[in-house]
């Protein structure tokens, strides 16, 4: 029995949600809901088994249909993708539980949601660039429909921009695939890696790589190409669960593809320096834009951009510790950003507004939800004992560049604190009188569902738990000896002092600087249309090409 479970085929976690969702589609919503929750529990279980198998027996490779690699399709699970598959299943389970009693959990919504999980997992499992193209287009369509799911809100534009921009990026990707096939005659990751290393003229790789990395960078939301991200992640019509899903998981697929792309060409072209800088610029511009926002969800969406930059810095730092620190930050960010979006949705609903300046005193009005949100904020800002501090510390210690890069990390962290100082203003103070408007009183008769509060606190506990048990969690998820002066008292005290200092500086700067600036208003009003985004993306392609032709 045990060994039978142990050898579960890789296509099961892909097909199970899709098939279950399709077969059960016509049953009553109530039954369907429970069916899908059961599927999610099984999925978490399967993902945990697969991770355990990868950690003990090494990477798993499966051929579908019995064809050999260049022609047939292969599924592969290795030490990078296995933890991410587990992350996807865990976050999905928590989100589905969180939304257990929401009214928009109709069959269509759940069907799309659960199919999206299958597609996401297959993106992590696939080992073929053409499949990546197909699956990415599929996620684009599903996500577009999910963004627009709540009817009657003016959000069609957000969906349209997301869709068009993704299609455009994937056209780049497809042409890149064409060049890859012309140069190498294979499309699977292993084949490309092997032949790229044996290439006598590395310049032949530049054009396909630039095209593909532009498309992948757009999916991940790198510097000039994140215009779509806040629009999609903070769309007024998207249920907060969808925002959580997009910011927590969907963006990470782009980062994962970036990791794969770097693995394929890493032996031939060296772009780590370039993407280190791009990561830093993304992180800085992300928090600068986040400070300017007034909409509670837009702040979170821009903060996602900033954290993506931080993850990129870790992944391209070129050291083992930095890389796995970046991977851990992917996990951490998925947890706290999902929780932040969920609680922001609850807060916005309770107050009937999404304007940060009009929400005050959530601690008094909704204590449990605010506690959960506060845990997430602490994780986000890297407070000692929380998960964010571990991954940020690993990223920082993985950077070889010395003090300059450490200063850069401090700058990013300072910016994050500044953003969340602003965000935390909603927690404190005195809530406005409830009789303020009819909409407010209507809502307050229907208090927050206790069920959602429990799930929010579970999220919060996970954030704290990863921080407290960083060593065991690291060695369970990733193949790296957890570096571990983390636990020692001296560094913990040092980090606590550094955290307190940065926090004090951030609060001071916020109170005496940022909150009084009028520039914020103007930045907020800036908007880039689709053409602008396309120009920025072509510009990114151009810069990558120039950089590569100049250095190779």
């Amino acid at each position, binding site marked *: 029995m045990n060994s039978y479970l142990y050898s579960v085929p890789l296509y099961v976690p892909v097909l199970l949600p899709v098939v279950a969702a399709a077969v059960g589609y016509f049953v009553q919503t109530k039954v369907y809901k429970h069916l899908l929750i059961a599927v999610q529990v099984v999925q978490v279980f399967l993902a945990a088994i697969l991770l355990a198998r990868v950690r003990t027996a090494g990477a798993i490779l499966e051929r579908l249909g019995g064809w050999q690699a260049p022609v047939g399709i292969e599924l592969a699970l290795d030490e990078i993708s296995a933890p991410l598959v587990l992350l996807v299943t865990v976050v999905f389970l928590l989100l589905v539980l969180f939304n257990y009693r929401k009214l928009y959990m109709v069959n269509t919504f759940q069907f799309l949601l659960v199919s999206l999980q299958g597609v996401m997992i297959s993106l992590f499992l696939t080992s073929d660039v*053409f499949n990546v193209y197909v699956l990415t*287009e599929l996620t684009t369509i599903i996500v577009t429909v999910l963004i627009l799911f709540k009817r009657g809100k003016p959000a069609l534009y957000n969906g349209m921009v997301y869709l068009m921009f993704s299609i455009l990026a994937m056209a780049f990707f497809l042409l890149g695939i064409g060049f890859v096939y*012309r140069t190498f005659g294979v499309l699977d990751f292993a084949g490309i890696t092997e032949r790229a290393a044996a290439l006598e003229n590395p310049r032949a790789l530049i054009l396909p790589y630039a095209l593909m990395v532009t498309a992948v960078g757009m999916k991940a939301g790198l510097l000039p190409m994140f215009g779509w991200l806040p629009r999609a992640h903070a769309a007024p019509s998207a249920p907060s669960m969808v925002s959580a899903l997009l910011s927590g998981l969907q963006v990470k697929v782009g980062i994962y593809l970036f990791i794969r792309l770097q693995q394929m060409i890493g032996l031939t072209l060296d772009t780590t320096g370039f993407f280190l800088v791009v990561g830093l610029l993304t992180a800085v511009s992300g928090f600068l834009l986040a400070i300017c926002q007034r909409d509670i969800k837009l702040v979170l969406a821009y903060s996602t951009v900033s954290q993506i930059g931080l993850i990129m810095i870790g992944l391209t730092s070129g050291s083992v510790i930095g890389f796995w620190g970046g991977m851990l930050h992917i996990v951490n960010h998925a947890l706290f950003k999902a929780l932040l979006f969920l609680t922001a949705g609850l807060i916005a609903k309770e107050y009937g507004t999404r304007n940060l300046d009009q929400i005050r005193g959530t601690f008094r009005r909704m204590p449990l939800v605010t506690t959960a949100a506060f845990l997430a904020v602490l994780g986000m800002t890297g407070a000692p004992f929380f998960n964010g501090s571990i991954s940020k510390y690993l990223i920082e210690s993985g950077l070889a560049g010395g003090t300059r890069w450490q200063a850069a990390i401090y700058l990013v962290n300072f910016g994050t604190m500044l953003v969340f100082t602003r965000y935390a203003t909603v927690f404190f103070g005195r809530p406005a009188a409830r009789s303020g408007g009819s909409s407010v009183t209507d809502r307050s008769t229907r208090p927050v569902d206790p069920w959602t509060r429990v799930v929010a606190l579970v999220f919060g506990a996970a954030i704290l738990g990863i921080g407290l048990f960083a060593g065991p969690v690291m060695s369970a998820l990733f193949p790296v000896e957890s570096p571990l002066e983390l636990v020692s008292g001296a560094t913990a005290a040092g980090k606590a002092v550094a955290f307190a200092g940065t926090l004090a500086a951030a609060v001071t700067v916020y109170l005496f600087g940022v909150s009084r600036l009028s520039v914020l208003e103007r930045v907020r009003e800036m908007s880039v249309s689709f053409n602008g985004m*396309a120009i920025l993306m072509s510009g990114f392609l151009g810069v990558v090409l120039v950089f590569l032709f100049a250095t190779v």
Partner: protein
Amino acid sequence: MGDIINVQNVSLVLFFVGLYGVLSNRNIIKSIIAVNIMDVAAILFLITVNRRPDQIPPIGSQNVAAMADPLPQALMITAIVIGISVTAVSITLFIGLFRRYGTSDWQKIVYRVDRG
């Protein structure tokens, strides 16, 4: 001269013509068409990869050596279907946008979205 004008180069030119259309047009319908042109160009490029004029279609099991590479052809059928479906979705969204804002100009719509 005959060497330069081959299908591969034509498809590359077509791709950048499409890109120019995306960059320079504010009309949403034209953007959709331009992205489609890029898609078709990429598909054309892939179909003609490693192709020689004397090759025969990959049908049947005789004379395998003279056949064209079947893999890109199989893949591009998928890509064509995907192109059609995403176009259908984007046109559907465009209809909704046009009904709401009464214009097909990206710039005007973004202005109305962001400033009420």
